[in-house]
């Protein structure tokens, strides 16, 4: 049987503590072991961090929607929010990053390549770009995304439990 968690998150970094606690609590309540709880909590938090950083929030009531499903065979995380479909760099960056990650046979290789790239960047360059690589490597997840007719971006990460 599937067990589901839905969170509505304000685009405010102060929400990250709550997201971390609630995701971890839900995953533990699903009966996952401590290692799996830490792993998939990281996946949820990294996706929500990206949503806060790169989403478009015009309306005060705009929220990031987080949907987590735990089934006997997988953990699925989907994070949805408004985005700038045309003229904005975030969607293009996301597309390029996902394609880049898929170009590696092993997620570890992409993770190491990104770490090497960070090491060559100036000290004041603050964008890590490591989050999605970490999701595929540490979270062993397959990443995907789509944009619906209302310019809402959904990014999903699905990890197999078997």
């Amino acid at each position, binding site marked *: 049987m599937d067990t589901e968690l839905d969170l509505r998150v304000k685009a405010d970094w102060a929400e990250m*503590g709550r997201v971390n606690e609630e995701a971890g609590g839900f995953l533990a309540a699903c009966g996952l072991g401590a290692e799996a709880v830490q792993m998939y909590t990281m996946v949820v938090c990294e996706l929500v961090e990206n949503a806060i950083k790169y989403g478009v929030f015009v309306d005060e009531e705009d929220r990031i929607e987080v949907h987590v499903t735990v089934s006997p065979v997988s953990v699925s995380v989907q994070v949805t929010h408004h985005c700038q479909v045309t003229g904005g760099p975030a969607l293009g960056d996301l597309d390029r990053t996902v394609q880049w990650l898929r170009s590696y046979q092993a997620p570890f290789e992409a993770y190491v390549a990104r*770490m090497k790239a960070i090491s060559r960047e100036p000290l004041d360059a603050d964008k*890590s770009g490591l989050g999605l690589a970490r999701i595929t*490597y540490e979270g062993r997840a397959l990443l995907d995304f789509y944009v619906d007719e209302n310019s809402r971006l959904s990014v999903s990460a699905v990890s197999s439990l078997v």
Partner: protein
Amino acid sequence: MGTVQTYDNNQLHVEVDAAERAVTLRFLGKSMLREPGEFLLPLLLKTLSEAIDGKKRIVLDFRELAYMNSSTLTPVIKILERARVGKGEITLVYRKALKWQDISFSALVIFQTPDGRILIQGEG
């Protein structure tokens, strides 16, 4: 144990323990800052500079860190690389028994140097 100073930012706490031969930075709590580099990089650079002057090794001890976001690794990577290509001795210690720490930190072995100046060690 030498002089211990504590630096706090949100749920992340860093204890800096300056002893005779080494300066140990113990990372405690959760690192979920939006820009961890703004907090950590100045602290790491200052510690590296002082450690080089005092001919001390820096120990970055992450064993008691409960969680970190990926942005936290950026200043760590940069200080390891700065020491690798320049001066300084750094040992990064993580808890091998914690799977997320083992996966995240063991990959930093690419910054390890053959002469032992930069060491990445999984313990416990």
